C-alpha cells in the first residue's frame, strides 16, 4: 500500500517537473522570438500553451485520484496540496510566457525600437530560476528553493530598470510610445512570470520543511 502511494506521489512530482520544463521551453522560445523578431517561433510558443493547460488538468485529476484512493496524511498530504497549488502557478507562468510571445509577434512586424538587452536578460534569469526550482524539486532541496526567491528579486530589479529606460524613450520621442508600451507589457509579463515561480518555490519550501514561507513583499 505504502509502495503504491510512493509511486503515485513520485509520478505527480515528475509530471509537475514536466510542466515546469514545458513552461521553461516556452519562456526560452518566446525570448528568442522577441530578440530575433521571429514571428514563426512566437506562434509556436502560443500553440504550446495548450499543452501546459492540458497537463495542468491531467495532473490535477491524478492528484485528486491519489487523495481518494490512498487518503494520505501528514507530509504526503502536504506534497499533494503543494502540487495542486503549484499547478495553478505554473499554468499562469505559461500564460505569461505566451503573452511575451504574442507581443513578440506584434513587435516582429516592424523594425525594433532598439537592440534589446535588459529584456532578454530578464528571460535568461527566469530560465535560471526554473532550472534551480527543478533541481530543488528533483533533489528535495529546500535551500535551493530559497535561492529561487532571491533570484526573483533580481528579476524585479531588472523590471524596474526596463521601465525607467522605456519611460525615457517615450519622453524623448513620443513616436516610440506604442512600441515602448508593448515592450513594457513584455517586461511586466516576465516580472509576473517570476512572481508565479516564486510562489511555487514557497510551496516547495512548505512541502520540504513544513514551514510556511512568504517572501516579504507578499505580506500585506
Amino acid at each position, binding site marked *: 500500500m505504502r509502495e503504491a502511494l510512493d509511486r503515485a506521489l*513520485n509520478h505527480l*512530482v*515528475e509530471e509537475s*517537473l*514536466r510542466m515546469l*520544463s*514545458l513552461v*521553461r*521551453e516556452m519562456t*526560452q522560445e518566446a525570448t528568442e522570438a522577441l530578440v*530575433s*523578431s*521571429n*514571428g*514563426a*517561433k512566437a*506562434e509556436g510558443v502560443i500553440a504550446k500553451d495548450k499543452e501546459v493547460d492540458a497537463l495542468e488538468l491531467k495532473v490535477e485529476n491524478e492528484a485528486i485520484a491519489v487523495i481518494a484512493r490512498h487518503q494520505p496524511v501528514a507530509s504526503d498530504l502536504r506534497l499533494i496540496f503543494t502540487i495542486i497549488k503549484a499547478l495553478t502557478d505554473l499554468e499562469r507562468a505559461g500564460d505569461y510566457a505566451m503573452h511575451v510571445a504574442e507581443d513578440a509577434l506584434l513587435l*516582429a512586424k516592424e*523594425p525594433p525600437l532598439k537592440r534589446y538587452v535588459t529584456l532578454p536578460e530578464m528571460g535568461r534569469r527566469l*530560465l*535560471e530560476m526554473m*532550472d534551480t526550482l*527543478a*533541481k530543488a524539486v*528533483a*533533489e528535495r532541496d529546500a535551500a535551493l528553493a530559497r535561492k529561487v526567491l532571491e533570484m526573483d528579486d533580481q528579476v524585479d530589479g531588472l523590471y524596474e530598470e526596463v521601465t525607467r529606460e522605456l519611460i525615457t524613450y517615450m519622453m524623448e520621442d513620443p513616436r516610440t510610445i506604442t512600441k515602448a508600451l508593448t515592450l513594457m507589457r513584455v517586461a511586466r509579463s516576465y516580472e509576473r512570470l517570476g512572481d508565479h515561480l516564486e510562489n511555487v518555490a514557497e510551496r516547495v519550501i512548505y512541502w520540504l520543511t513544513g514551514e510556511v514561507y512568504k517572501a516579504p513583499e507578499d505580506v500585506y
Partner: protein
Amino acid sequence: MTEALAQAWEEAMEGLVLHRERRVLYLNPKAAELLEVRREKVVGHSLLLALRDHRLEALALHGGERALEVRGRLLKARALPGRLYLWDETEAKRRLEALEEATQVLAHELRTPLAGMGPLLEALTPKTPQEKEVLDLLKGEVARLSRLVKDLSLTQPGPKRTFALEELWPRLERLLQERLRGRRVEVHLAHPVRTDPEVVFQILLNLLDNALKYGQDPIRLVSLAEGNHFRLEVRDRGPELPDYENLFLPHHRGFQGGTGEGLGLYLVRRLARNLGGEAYAFRQEPENVFGVHFPLD
C-alpha cells in the same frame, strides 16, 4: 573486459545515461556534470528526474539526435534504445557567436571604403589594353567584395511586396547566363508570395549557384505552399553527402576542392532566419534538396 569498459565510461569525455523502463540505471560522471545532477540522487529514479527536461526525456525514449539548450548549456544528444549520449557544444556555439559578431564589425568597417572605391574606379580611363584588363579585374573584385559585405551585414528584411516567384527567374538567368549554358534547369516557381523579393532572390541565387557548381543535372527549382508556410527548394541529382547540417556552418565546404568562400549556405540560413524561417538540406533519393521555409504573410 567488462570491468575495463565500465572504467572507461567513468573516465569518458562524453556523457552517457543508461535507462530502462523510464528509470536511470547508470550515468557516468560526465553526464552528471552536463546535467548538473548528483549521481546518488538520480540513479534508480525516474529518467525525467535526472534529465529535468521534457525534450531530452522524449528524445531518450523515442530515439534520434538533437541539439538542445539545457540549463544554459548547448547539449548535443543522441539517443539509442536504453542509451543517451551527451556532448557539450557550448564552446562551439560561443565561437560561432564570436565569429558572427566579428563578421558584423568587419562588414560595417568595410562597407564605407568599398562604396567609395566603385565610383573612383569608374572615373579612371585606361590607356592601354593591359590597363583596361587590370581595371576590369579590379572593378569585378570590388563588386564581388561589395556583394559579400552586403550579404554579411545582418540587416532586417526590406519592404515586403506581393510578387510571383517566376518574376525572379529572368534576373537569375541573366546573372548566371554563362554558367547556365548547356545545363538542364527546370523551373517550377508557381506561387505568389508576400515578402522581401531581394532576400528571396539572394537565397535562390546562392542555392542555384551551389547546385551549378557542385550538383548534377537536372536541377529543379521548386516552390511549395504548406499551411501558412512556404518552401523554396533547389534540387539536384548530385551524389549523397556525408553530412547535411554542417554545410550551413561558415567556411565549411561540402565538397573537396570547393572554390567558394564556404559562406553560401551559411548566408542562406541567415537570410532565411531574417525572414522568420529556416534553411535546410537533406537527401531525398535521387536528389539532394537544399531549401528554405518561411511564413506566408
